[in-house]
């Protein structure tokens, strides 16, 4: 792992490394300054409404994600003087950076954000353009709430990276290149070609990983059709969101949620306009001059679900807004389960049909 980092460093002219950084509590997405900061010796235990770090070597993710870097919670987009002169546009060059050890679902989430924000959102665009390398950790054992296989986002990657690695066990890494840079890096590391023993093991482990995901959407297209059919059933959405309290945690932890509200902060000598994350589950969302267009919570819950599964594809040229990371399930204080709800969608539709 150290060598991998060093080679990227040499080849790409000393970029910064960004990844899940081990802190005193839970790893968060941040700058990685040394290999010892990577979460290599811990695992996460995830259940609806529950998260724990234990010893192990299967860290998947936390409440944090690459979104924290690319589209931070607060983006100062304009600073003005008391006479309304612009002092700072808030956009600076993105740092040259390598994403290190991100998960397949993280990569997919960035692909989704790219479709919506790249070349449109100045802060995102600057940071995104600074990403010069991508190293992905594939998942040989999914987390307790992961369902990426159902939405075609993991647990392995096929494109959009330079190097991907899989930890076959604590000590054994299987690496694969995904680009010219990746091939160059692996070459200068002087690695041997993996024997079929290892590649077979890898294939088996991937198969097992997919099978072991408890949450499954049997048929995405059918689910989408069913959602379309249920879109205007108030009764159904009220029932499904009965326990939701609109806290917004699901929005903030979701790696593809991108909504912001502009907040103007007026100080003594200058004022700032700050684009601030806002969740569609919270009441402010939908509150506009003259009224509110999603006043009831069930309407906002419905919007969240329909946006992820029906509207994102319209915005992204086909990509879903859900990458199956399961964060919204783990970090919901009530432990509401999106996939369980979607399975109910299918059941309701079955009963009717």
């Amino acid at each position, binding site marked *: 792992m150290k060598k991998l980092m060093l080679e990227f460093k040499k080849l790409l002219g000393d970029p910064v490394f960004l990844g899940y950084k081990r802190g005193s509590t839970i790893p*968060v997405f941040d700058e990685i300054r040394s290999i010892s900061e990577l979460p290599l010796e811990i695992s996460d235990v995830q259940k609806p409404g529950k998260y724990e770090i234990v010893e192990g070597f299967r860290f998947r993710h936390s*409440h944090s994600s690459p979104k924290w870097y690319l589209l931070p919670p607060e983006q100062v987009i304009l600073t003005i003087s008391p006479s309304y002169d612009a002092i700072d546009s808030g956009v600076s060059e993105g740092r040259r950076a390598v994403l290190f050890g991100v998960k397949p679902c993280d990569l997919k989430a960035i692909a989704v954000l790219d479709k919506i924000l790249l070349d449109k959102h100045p802060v995102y665009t600057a940071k995104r353009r600074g990403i010069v390398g991508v190293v992905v950790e594939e998942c040989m054992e999914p987390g307790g709430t992961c369902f990426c296989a159902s939405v075609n986002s993991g647990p392995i990657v096929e494109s959009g990276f330079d190097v991907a690695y899989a930890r076959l066990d604590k000590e054994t890494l299987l690496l694969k290149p995904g680009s010219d840079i990746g091939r160059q890096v692996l070459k200068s590391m002087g690695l041997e070609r993996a024997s079929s023993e290892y590649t077979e093991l890898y294939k088996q482990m991937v198969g097992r990983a997919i099978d072991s995901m408890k949450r499954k959407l049997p048929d995405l297209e059918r689910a989408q059709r069913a959602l379309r059919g249920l879109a205007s059933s108030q009764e159904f959405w009220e029932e499904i969101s009965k326990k939701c309290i*609109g806290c917004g*945690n699901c929005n903030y932890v979701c790696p593809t949620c991108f909504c912001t509200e502009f907040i103007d902060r007026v100080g003594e000598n200058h004022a700032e306009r700050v684009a*601030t*994350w806002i969740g569609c589950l919270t009441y402010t969302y939908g509150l506009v001059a003259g009224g509110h267009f999603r006043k009831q919570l069930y309407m906002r819950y419905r919007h969240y679900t329909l946006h992820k599964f029906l509207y994102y594809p319209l915005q992204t040229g086909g990509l879903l807004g859900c990458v199956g990371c399961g964060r919204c399930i783990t970090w919901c204080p009530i432990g509401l389960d999106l996939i369980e709800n979607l399975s109910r969608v299918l059941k309701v539709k079955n009963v009717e049909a």
Partner: protein
Amino acid sequence: MLKLAIVKITSCSGCINEILSALLEDDIRANYTLVYFTELVDSIEFREADLAFVEGSVTTRHQEEALKDLRKRVGFIVATGTCALMGGVQSLRAMGDFKPESRGLPLKQESSEIYREPKPLDQVVKVDYALPGCPINADAVKTFLRKYYLGGLPIAIYETVCSECKRRGLPCVLVTKGIPCLGPITLSGCGAICPSFGRGCYGCYGLQFHGLNGGKVLSFAERLRELGLPDLDYRALISAYSYAKYRDLLGGSH
């Protein structure tokens, strides 16, 4: 210069200290003149003000009448603090054995004129703006006073403490440690202070009531129970600062 009055009814003066802190800013002092502020200015009465912060909840008939009179003389009223919005901690008395005459304290009013359930300001007069918090946050007062002077208002954000907690990137104490936390049903504004010290939110900014109903509050209470809070504790916890809203959603029975 805008004329500013700071009025206090039943409350602890915690919010007033935050207002004081805001008034220490030079640019704010330059634009406002204090016409009434018993902690700072020697005036017992004032005729008119452009703007008044009213701290506290209404607990006597006398206060109610004084407020109605105040409304006629003030252009813009800011309900200040969770007391003014939802009753505040003093509302806990509504859940107990309320006997004002039995405390051995001399009463200024007939006990029949003292309300068992403190009233939020908006039950008595029209309120133009609300600043939640116990106490409110001086930064919110500064922002308000600066924007108000420029002819605007801060946009109202109705979200939960979780929103601030997540934006700060704090690890959730409820999900990671099983600590009962009221953040998911509490108005934002404090910056998630309690979770930042690894403890659960106590709900001092008041119930984030938009979109909630009795059933949802109870399902959240059920979650707190799972985490080990006994029946009575979770009710006291949820209603401690926000009794008036709690009662609206769940009724006053205890």
